[in-house]
């Protein structure tokens, strides 16, 4: 398996470590699925695409729909951009849960730029373990300053000390730059353990939400790949279940109400019912498929120039070789001589000025690519009565209450 985005920054040991990491995550997801009663967990999911020739994309908008559904769009936009006193991204850690996270850089109240990433934390752990100098260079590039040090990335550990193992370096990076979930629950406390180089204060390296990682992605995929049919309540014929019906019906480890989870569950459950084998696309990852820049306008209602948009951490499309674009990072920023800033832009679909990162996320389409076997062999099964699974809003409302208590809600 190639590294995410077909990036070429890992040497051979790092690439092997990444592949091992993928295998470990998949095995863990299968074991967990089996323990939870997922029938034939992992039977349909393979890592090697081999003869799986049908390429399919599962696409969804990047705006956290669950937050919108629970809190209303206006409140959700504000909460998702909630930062602490020093600028730590509390809202991001709590509820940016669609496999994309963002950082809004403001000068006063005006947005100067918005950065977005879909990069998996597990990959950054491998990078930290095997390529510390590359890690430092990237961190300095994203923070836009040379004043980032190894201490910002590894804590008290000097990664250049001879004899240190890759695992030790990875662990030090994780301890310094990723949240620790063992002891605290409140996002406004959890964010304090994430280093400023990744918590939004000085930079955005990789994702930190508890579900935006490789293990969760495999958990979602494995638990979704179960055959399931329901009886339609009107026609009384069998049909494929909706995402929320499948989540309830097969016990998929997924959150109803999101843009991502119900879609993945619905599609993968269908593939399993059709008897298809599935492999994640290579390179594995969630990618930024598009930004609808035409939905933004300059103050004079002209289109936003393409040069405002930067896609990175991935590869361009190669149509001749049939390789799709696979970008993991997006930055929206005005060039130096531009007559306006990002905060001056207007969102055409709502008529609103661009004030929140979520308004941009609403225009970003993410993609998870998979490959499947051809042909259909329907699993012999009896359709069951459909049961919808309801989305729960308790966690969002609790965060909103904390947001209001912090004086941010007015």
């Amino acid at each position, binding site marked *: 398996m190639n590294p995410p985005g077909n990036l070429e920054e890992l040497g051979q040991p790092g690439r092997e470590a990444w592949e091992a990491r993928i295998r470990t995550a998949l095995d863990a997801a299968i074991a967990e699925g089996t323990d939870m009663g997922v029938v034939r967990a992992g039977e349909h999911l393979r890592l090697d695409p081999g003869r799986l020739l049908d390429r399919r994309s599962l*696409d969804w908008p990047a705006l956290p729909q669950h937050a919108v559904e629970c809190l209303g769009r206006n409140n959700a936009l504000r909460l998702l951009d909630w930062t602490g006193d020093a600028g730590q991204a509390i809202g991001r850690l709590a509820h940016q849960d669609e496999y994309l996270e963002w950082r809004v850089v403001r000068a006063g109240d005006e947005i100067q730029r918005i950065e977005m990433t879909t990069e998996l934390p597990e990959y950054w752990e491998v990078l930290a373990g095997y390529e510390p100098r590359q890690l430092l260079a990237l961190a300095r590039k994203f923070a836009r300053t040379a004043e980032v040090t190894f201490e910002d990335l590894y804590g008290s550990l000097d990664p250049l000390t001879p004899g240190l193992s890759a695992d030790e370096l990875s662990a030090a990076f994780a301890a310094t730059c990723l949240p620790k979930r063992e002891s605290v629950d409140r996002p406004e406390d959890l964010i304090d353990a994430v280093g400023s180089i990744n918590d939004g204060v000085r930079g955005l390296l990789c994702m930190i939400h508890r579900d935006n990682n490789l293990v969760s992605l495999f958990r979602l995929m494995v638990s979704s790949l179960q055959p399931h049919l329901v009886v*339609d*309540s*009107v026609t009384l014929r069998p049909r494929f279940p*909706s995402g929320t019906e499948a989540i309830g019906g097969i016990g998929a480890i997924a959150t109803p109400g999101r843009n*991502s989870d119900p879609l993945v569950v619905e599609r993968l459950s269908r593939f399993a019912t059709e008897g298809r084998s599935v492999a994640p696309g290579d390179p594995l990852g969630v990618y930024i498929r598009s930004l609808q820049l*035409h939905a933004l306008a300059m103050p004079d209602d002209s289109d936003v120039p393409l040069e405002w948009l930067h896609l990175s951490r991935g590869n361009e499309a190669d149509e001749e070789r049939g390789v799709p674009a696979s970008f993991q990072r997006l930055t929206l920023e005005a060039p130096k001589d531009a007559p306006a800033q990002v905060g001056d832009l207007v969102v055409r679909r709502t008529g609103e000025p661009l004030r929140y990162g979520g308004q941009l996320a609403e225009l970003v389409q993410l993609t998870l690519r998979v490959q499947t076997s051809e042909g259909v062999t329907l699993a012999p099964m009896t359709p069951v009565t459909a049961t919808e699974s309801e989305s729960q809003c308790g966690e969002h409302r609790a965060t909103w209450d904390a947001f209001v208590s912090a004086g941010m809600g007015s």
Partner: protein
Amino acid sequence: MSSETLQPGIYFERSVPPPPAWLALLLNASRGATPRQVSEAVGEVVAMLTGLQEGQLRELSVTRADEAPASIPLHTFDFLLGFGTSFFSPGRGLAAAEKPSHLVSLRRGRSAFPALPWSDHGSDDTDRGEADFFLQFTGATQHAVSRAAVEVVSLVNEQTLPLEPVWSFDGFQRDDGRSWVGFHDGVSNLEPSQRRAAIECRGDPDWNRGGTYLAFLRIDISLNRWRTLTRREQELIIGRNKLTGVPLESIDEDGTPLTMPISPPTDASSWYERDAYFNIADSGNPRIEATHVNRVNQNRASPSTPSAHRIFRQGYEFLGRVSPTGADVGLNFISFQSDLRHLQQVLGLPGWLGDANFGGDSHAGQSADPVFSLAAGGFYAVPPKESPFPGARLFLAQTTMS
């Protein structure tokens, strides 16, 4: 399956197909009228229409004691009332309610949608589909819906109500299940059990919970341009066999589109074959995926899955002017959706309809000679049922304009 809250005129129940005749009447509130005056005017219009449904025509009212009432056929039409972007404009001083976030004018920007340009009618009159109020009439005959619209205009004029009719549009259902481009239309609409999930708003703003949003796009179709394409080219734009409606699955070495190995469904068809015919199974073939029927449903997911962007379509064809150069034909595209974002995504996303005029390969810019173009259009909130009329509580409760 019936809805307690949705206004009539949305035919989502399996056993109730849309009636053949359609007419939309757009009205603005008169400048200078107070919110209360406008609200009362709308109430009078709704009351009149309700009476008309019961056979009461004002023209035929009894005027002498010895007269027996005359009536007209009953229940010949349905109507629903929508509220446009301009109604919520703070400058109008009409609305107390919060404007839904994605209820916007389609005038903004050079093109309402990136791959659906405005028609070139030789005028800049691109706001013809937008008004404060949208009255949709659907009925068994063109006369029934026309009479309803005429009675509204008559009432407004005779009673000097503070409403101004600004535009009307009409259309019809075909008898062959096809559209002007010759292909089956409305085939891959939603499963009956899932339609309400696609249609009904779940809140945000809360006042529209149980209501819906209506999108009206009057789409011109250049038959002259369309009929220059070969049948093969047409099929690779649409995504179905032109004669049978069976979805395409692949393309052979000669470039001939090949259909799925199924037939148009009958009572004897398996559920899977019916599903493949109506819901277009994902082919995995990039050229097939670029066809219209695949583009509009890229995610192949159900309405209750938000990122499926499913909408409920209920369109009506139209015939405009006939001239020596041809006939102006098109589609009054009407969709109902729980959230206007869904239609905006379908018409904006690359790979969906954001980078292709209707279907086929994507293009970097708009075609100089598109087959489909937008003649008029607007978005409307369609509030849930309410007394004395849907949306009554949206009005400002004050007697003077600010």
